């Protein structure tokens, strides 16, 4: 039902004067609403009125001399917003009706069936539909605005991260280096106590460095900007290199560190920098969760379940992981908590990043563990087959 308390302005574009008279009469018979109807008889006058006057509804006859109401509808629709349009058609004009609805008409009435009831229903329907469309357009506009704002904010955050990275990393590089310079005696001899304290500072710098790198890698991973460039490379060179850097740390904690490699050279596709990062993370974790007199074993072997891959596993005799925690350890921000080592935390990004990095190599990182007995983290890397290295290297 139309519930307009004010007068509704109607434009009728109709080439037959008789039909115009009838339409005016039908409108005046609609109860409860006052209509003020303007009538024009040709296409051009109709276009002019719709463009420059404000109507609540347009009634367009299909036949308008040499042109049609459908052409007029298309023209005003192309030009942007217009009042709701009701097409007035002859009987059996289904094709025209379909085309009119597709071109933006709100409703249609076969002239022969026009009555106060049918016209009221069509106007009511058209006005309501128009209002809904307006609301939808408004929501659409608001969403577009909100989206543009989000994109702008996101760009701002990316720029901020870029500056933040620079501002955190540069002073940390200098701090680490000066500590090293002093530790190496380049600035004069040190007492035992000074040496000990500086080594603590050095360790703190390392943790900071690790956290900053993990944080930025995670951001880059989530924005799709972290990429790996796997190249044919030798695992049997990388593994001993990484192990060597860990030996002093394991000795300090009195944890045994061993590794075993197959007799033949092991060529895999890897981004050495990134696989080193994965190995560092898994070895740090193994050391973190293994207590004095325990042991950690790094093993490289053929993947028995997939002969195209090599399997690298890091097993420890540490505290182990509860079965219910196993599925969560690779989640971002997950921190393994144990009763025996409440202080062992970290950002909770290391395993998440390691798994994602291995995935980017086309491999898989998994874990097996038994509480109180230890854990084994294993990952696979694609093997370089004979002849392949020459092509890709």
């Amino acid at each position, binding site marked *: 039902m139309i519930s307009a308390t004010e007068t509704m302005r109607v434009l009728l574009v109709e080439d037959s004067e008789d039909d115009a008279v009838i339409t005016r009469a039908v409108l005046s018979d609609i109860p409860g609403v006052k209509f003020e109807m303007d009538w024009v008889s040709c296409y051009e006058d109709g276009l002019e009125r719709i463009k420059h006057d404000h109507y609540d509804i347009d009634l367009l006859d299909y036949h308008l001399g040499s042109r049609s109401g459908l052409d007029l509808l298309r023209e005003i629709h192309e030009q942007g917003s217009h009042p709701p349009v009701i097409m007035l058609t002859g009987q059996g004009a289904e094709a025209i009706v379909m085309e009119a609805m597709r071109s933006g008409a709100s409703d249609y009435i076969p002239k022969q069936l026009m009555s106060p009831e049918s016209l009221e229903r069509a106007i009511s329907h058209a006005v309501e539909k128009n209002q809904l469309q307006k609301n939808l357009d408004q929501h659409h506009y608001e969403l577009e605005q909100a989206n543009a704002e989000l994109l702008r904010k996101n760009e701002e955050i990316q720029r901020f991260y*870029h500056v933040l*990275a*620079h501002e955190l*990393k*540069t*002073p*940390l*590089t*200098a*701090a*680490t*280096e*000066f500590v*090293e*310079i002093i530790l190496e005696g*380049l*600035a004069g001899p040190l007492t035992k106590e000074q040496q000990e304290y500086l080594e603590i500072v050095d360790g703190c*710098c390392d943790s900071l*460095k690790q956290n*900053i790198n993990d944080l*930025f*890698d995670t951001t*880059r991973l989530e924005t799709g*900007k972290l*990429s790996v460039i796997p*190249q044919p490379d030798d695992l049997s060179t990388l593994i001993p290199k990484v192990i060597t850097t860990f030996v002093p740390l394991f000795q300090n904690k009195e944890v045994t560190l061993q590794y075993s490699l197959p007799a033949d050279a092991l060529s895999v596709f890897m981004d*050495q*920098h990134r696989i080193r990062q994965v190995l560092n993370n898994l070895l740090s974790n193994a050391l973190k969760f293994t207590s004095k007199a325990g042991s950690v074993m790094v093993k490289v072997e053929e993947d028995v379940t997939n002969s195209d891959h090599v399997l690298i596993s890091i097993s420890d005799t540490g505290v182990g992981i509860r079965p219910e925690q196993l599925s969560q350890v690779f989640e971002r921000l997950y921190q393994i908590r144990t009763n025996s080592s409440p202080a062992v935390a970290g950002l909770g990004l290391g395993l998440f990043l390691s798994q994602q990095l291995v995935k980017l190599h086309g491999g898989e990182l998994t874990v097996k563990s038994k509480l109180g007995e230890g854990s084994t983290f294993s990952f696979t890397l694609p093997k370089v087959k004979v002849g392949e290295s020459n092509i890709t290297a």
Partner: protein
Amino acid sequence: MQKRILVVEDDENIVKALGVRLRSKGYDVVVSYDAVMGMQKAMEQPPDLILLDIMMPGGNGVTLAERLQSSSKTGQIPIIFMTASKQCELRTQAHALGAVGFFEKPFDFGELLATVRAALEHPSVCLVG
């Protein structure tokens, strides 16, 4: 003969730390805190190697490297880039410019020194991965 290394880096602390390290290894170290001065110093007295920061106020290290490479006087000098940015494009750009090293801050000075030594001993080897 003592090898001369030009360090172009806007952070005074990093410059100082690099200076201590490189001088302790017997290198002659020349310093510039921005790209313009870096270009000038490289032209005046071409060094044997350049350690070049990428993000500097008033000039990008990559642009400086391009200018150095296009000059016959400085085109053959090996360049090692240092940057706090993790943008992969930079590594690719550095590689395209024939850089002999690319170090992301916070970098390991030991590795940096090893690259410096290798580049000075075997100037034709490209070490960027």
